[in-house]
């Protein structure tokens, strides 16, 4: 009698009790973070254009997440909610022309403000490139990264003043001698299949 009771309780405790105790303790013990987990930019065709990870993950995981997420987001209909529950994260995404901007945040974070972070980033890109289109981002993705780093640092909004962000970028750019951005150069010699990428992000 002793023995079988023992085993039974063990099994129950392992599963069930582990559940509530840790739930409670995680809640009281560990602070929540409002930090963004990652940001992905991808095209309507599912091509990744930019990726920024604010949490350490292995390359394999990153690839898996990207693949799954691109699929899920692309499958959403236009009138649907811009938020997604995905695993235990919230995904906030928005489409600008042919480009999807997609951020992962923690559940308790504010989805709407994340949506506005995306919008502010697009505004910054637009201001910097001058009516930005996907091609600008494709050919000058390192610039897009520089702008992102100036705006969001370590997953937190660093500088929310548009003027200040651009000032910082331009100061660095000034050193770039007198280079005119070759983007313009290539926008002219456009490949036919890239037509959609050249439409301004703010058109829609």
């Amino acid at each position, binding site marked *: 009698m002793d023995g*079988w*009771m023992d*085993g039974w*309780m*063990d*099994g*129950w*405790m*392992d*599963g*069930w*009790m*582990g559940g*509530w105790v*840790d*739930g*409670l303790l*995680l*809640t009281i013990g*560990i*602070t*929540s973070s*409002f930090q963004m*987990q990652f940001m992905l930019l991808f095209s309507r065709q599912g091509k*990744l254009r*930019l990726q*920024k*990870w604010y949490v350490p993950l292995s*390359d394999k*995981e990153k*690839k898996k*997440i990207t693949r799954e997420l691109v699929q899920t987001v692309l499958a959403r209909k236009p*009138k649907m909610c811009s938020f*997604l529950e995905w*695993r*235990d994260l919230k995904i906030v995404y928005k489409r600008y022309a042919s480009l999807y901007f997609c951020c*992962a945040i*923690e559940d308790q974070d*504010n989805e*709407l*403000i994340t*949506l*506005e972070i995306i919008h502010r980033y697009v505004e910054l890109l637009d201001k910097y490139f001058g009516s930005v289109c996907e091609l600008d981002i*494709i*050919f000058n993705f390192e610039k897009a*990264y*520089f702008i992102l*780093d100036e705006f969001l*640092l*370590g997953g*937190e909004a*660093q500088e*929310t003043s548009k*003027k200040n962000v651009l000032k910082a970028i331009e100061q*660095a750019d000034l*050193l770039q001698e007198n280079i005119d951005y*070759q983007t313009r150069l*290539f926008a002219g010699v456009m*490949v036919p299949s*890239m037509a959609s990428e050249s439409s301004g992000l703010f058109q829609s």
Partner: protein
Amino acid sequence: MSDVVEKTLTALPSLLSLDSQPGSAKLSSTAKLGNLIRGITELTSKHEEEKLIQHELASIKEQVSSPNTTMRQMRELMVRAVYCEMLGYEASFSYIHAIKLAQQGNVLEKRVGYLAVSLFLNESHELLLLLVNTVLKDLQSTNLIEVCMALTVVCQIFPKDMIPVILPIVEEKLNHPKEIIRRKAVLALHKFYLIAPNQVQHIHNKFRKALCDKDPGVMTASLHIYLQLIQENAEAYKDLTASFVTILKQVVGGKLPMDFNYHSVPAPWLQIQLLRILSLLGKNDQRTSEVMYEVLDESLRRAEMNHNITYAILYECVKCVYTIHPKSELLEKAAKCIGNFVLSPKINLKYLGLKALTYVVQQDPKLALQHQMTIIECLDHSDVIIKRETLELLFRITNAQNVTVIVEKMLDFLRLSKDDHMTIDIVGKVAELAEKYPFKHYSTMNAVFSLGGDMMQPEIPNGFLKLLSEGFDSEEEDRKLRLFAVSSYISLLQGEPSKLPQRFLQVICWVLGEYSFLKEDLEPSVVLGLLTKLLDMKSSSSETKSWVLVAMTKLCWSEAAVSEAQQVAETYSSSFDTTLRQRAQELQHLSRDSQLHSRVLPPGGRLEPDEVVDSSLSFLDGFVSEALSAGAAPYKPLHQRQEELSRSKVLSLEPYGLSLPISTSSCSITDRQSPTLLSTSSGLSGDGTDFSHRGSSTTLRLDGVKRVWGREGYLAQKKPVEEVAQVEVPSPLRSPSQQGDANSCRSKTPTPTANPECDQEKQQLASSLFGGLSSQSSVCLISGAAKMVNIQRFRRKAKGQRSSSTTNEQRANPTVSSASAVDNLLCNNLLEADTEPINSSAKQTFQHPHSLSVANGACDAEAILTDGDPKERNQPLSSEDFVEADDSPPREDQERSKDSCLTPHLPAELSGFSHSEIIPLCSSQSLDLSACHVQTDNSVVLVVFITNTSEDANLQIQVFCVCESPVEEVRGRSVSVRQYSLTVKMPLVHFELVGMLSYSIPAGMPQAMMQFSYKLPLTSFIRPLTVSTEEYGSMWLAFSHDTKQNLTLIKEEREPLTATLNALNKKLSLHVVEIIGVEGLVACSLLQDQPCLMHCRVHAGRLAVWLRSPVPDLPDCLLYHCQRALQEP
């Protein structure tokens, strides 16, 4: 000659790329990327792309390793390498070159180098160490842009161990004249705080300076740190509340420069950050909350513009209003705000409205009532995300009246759900509701098991079986329920069992094995036949098969069954699977011997819930010590073995420990429910894919966890409500009309098309969904605890990972534990002689102690209890002090009665502490030995009294008790008191001290020896540990040794939990940290430094406790005492 040729050849690539002409180089560099991108776009198949990129990578690789590549070319190459990596092709060869570029390039090249590094590497990459010097150099650069770049990269990735190298310089930057540098420095410190909080502890006052910075950007940046700090310890920052309120006032009032406006809303990010901080500060604190009412009101009022950003602020504001100490006026406004969200035609706002409702509904269930029609519409929304959030909301407002409808809705959702994660979550919720409202439970669980499949967490079936076996209030109900289960399972098995998930089959097996006898018209052989079919099924896992075999074992008591069972046992007794073989053996033996069968598995036998399990296995002590003395190797727990294994490669320079802990391995007895035990272990391997899936999802999150608002809300008001709720739970009765309502709604679920009839249906659904909410008395919210279960179910894997990572750390650091094992031998020199020894010329002849501390097998070696300097205190008979010091009889009596005057008594300095009774240990003609132990704050003092009963002879004594003691002389008719301060090296249930006393009467005569032993329980070493709930939480996660058990609750009608914990507090001096509803947090420590935490929860009339400690065996030993303490009347 050949030299010249070679040089020309190596220079060729750079010549070909026309790098000698700067203008064209620029062109060519971007052109190359452009070519690559266009090349990829023109491709049609994935295969071609792969070929192209591989080719590209090969050429990049060749160029980066060429010594002639200039930094400028390198910059371009890095951009291309980054691009290739983004497409999913590995370019790890370029990492080192990215670092080189950051190190050696000019500003522009550096910028690309740093970018590539931050994209390529993560925090733990070893190459990152090579970046430290570069960062250091750039931080000290006079070029602002270089400093900015260095700080930017530090904020993204920096090796934790190297923080001290750059910390002083980063700190210095806080005073930099340029605000951008100050801002980045603050963010860098924030980053440091996140990855290594201890490193920046000393600069907290500098954070304050940053908060007061004249530049709003720097101030905003500092709020990130404050949010973090306040989350961890709100108390310490209450004084800043007024400052935060002032800042928010100014921001809301539009005092910031226009630059910070976003769509003409002043600094929304800043506002949201401040609101988050305020809600943390005002939580459970009326006085602090009062400071912020005005500004919250202002925020709610100002944010009227119809833009997403104002809604974002409003949402945060509403959350804040509902988190801090409530003010009715504000609550009203906030509720109106939620209404605007919920009713908005914009789907994003609707979603947020539902989320906000979910957040506040525990505080104010009536709010859900107001929006019931919207909620019902959302329930049928075409977007699954909205549906999902609505179910979450409904889950929170479930009560006994609407549970059926809500569960039905959830099951509907499950039937359509394709997302594994959501399925797992909803299955967990349904199971929880079913557990909570068991009478509506049964058919639900069938649906849960078949829908949830093998994805669900193993605790769900386990919990269900437990519920079924423990039963409810009435025997009759139990019987009916079980009978129903048996019949429905039989018909399921007669159908198509191969379609059922494995977990469900296991449940079916258990139930049939246990309860099929209840169905009288059912022959066991029929059941056996059905079960045999399961065994033959290809899809059955071996785990399921072992459940089947156990069920068969329980069933084979009739004649017909036996032969069938024998046959099956025959087949499986040669199985490759050891578990199956084991079960088959059991089946074989038990089916042969019916007497044994009925003894081991009495038909209809019920669990005896009041069994006491001595999980420390102290009853084996004798056996263990016998085995040890026969030369057996001491048992080592798994972690220790692994530790040793990892250490074994290194030469061990430490002395071999004598210790042998009594460990409590879970004994595998062939028990009735053994598959349960089995399933929890094999569940891990069996569901490998599932777990890994969840695992990868949880690694994303840092350490944040969903806040449960109800717990931390305004508790003073909440508590009584919760208690009401608990009382209400078990009442299963509904008024017939309500029942009718619910039933009708279940049969007619509304359809999305809107017509008048449909509206009516919705009304009906509404009345059944929100039925219980209107009257406060029947409100039965899913309490905070229940909510937490869910979070946990979500994130179960996270815990697993965390714990496994801690064990890894342990293994990596074997020295820590080994050192502690040795160093635990403390010699406390705390005690000094306080009265002058009578014989001041005591001979200081030190002798080596005999190996002494041999006690019972258990205590033996690890009871390395050390003593301090033994204290000598000889008391002359006729001293005034003596009479005063203890309450011995007046002097006249003393002279008459020898016994009374020789009463041992405690030294004065110990009299303030609690002590045990003085127990006589042994005696001889002229010598009495007695002892007691005194519990001081940081040790236990063993006080040994040596009484010389002889009239005239002086004794010369020497006590060996672990340490030697000087030879002393004890005069006739006097008491010598010795004190030994004891500390614990290794926890045990009881400690037995063995000592030796050698004495000679009179002094100088041959010595006589006397052996004595003294037993003291672990509890005398236990001290209450005063910690806050937060500290408790973080400690809990850090501890690796744990044990779990169900204990008896003290029978008291009103508050059994409180009564029980108080009893533990009184008997074992455990500190009760907090009691939250049905859960209690208790903490204690073994003396000063070895904490043990206990988490208790009332479940099914018993107290489920879980103990955790960093010290192996401590939880088990303590549990034993808890068990004992609660049994005693």
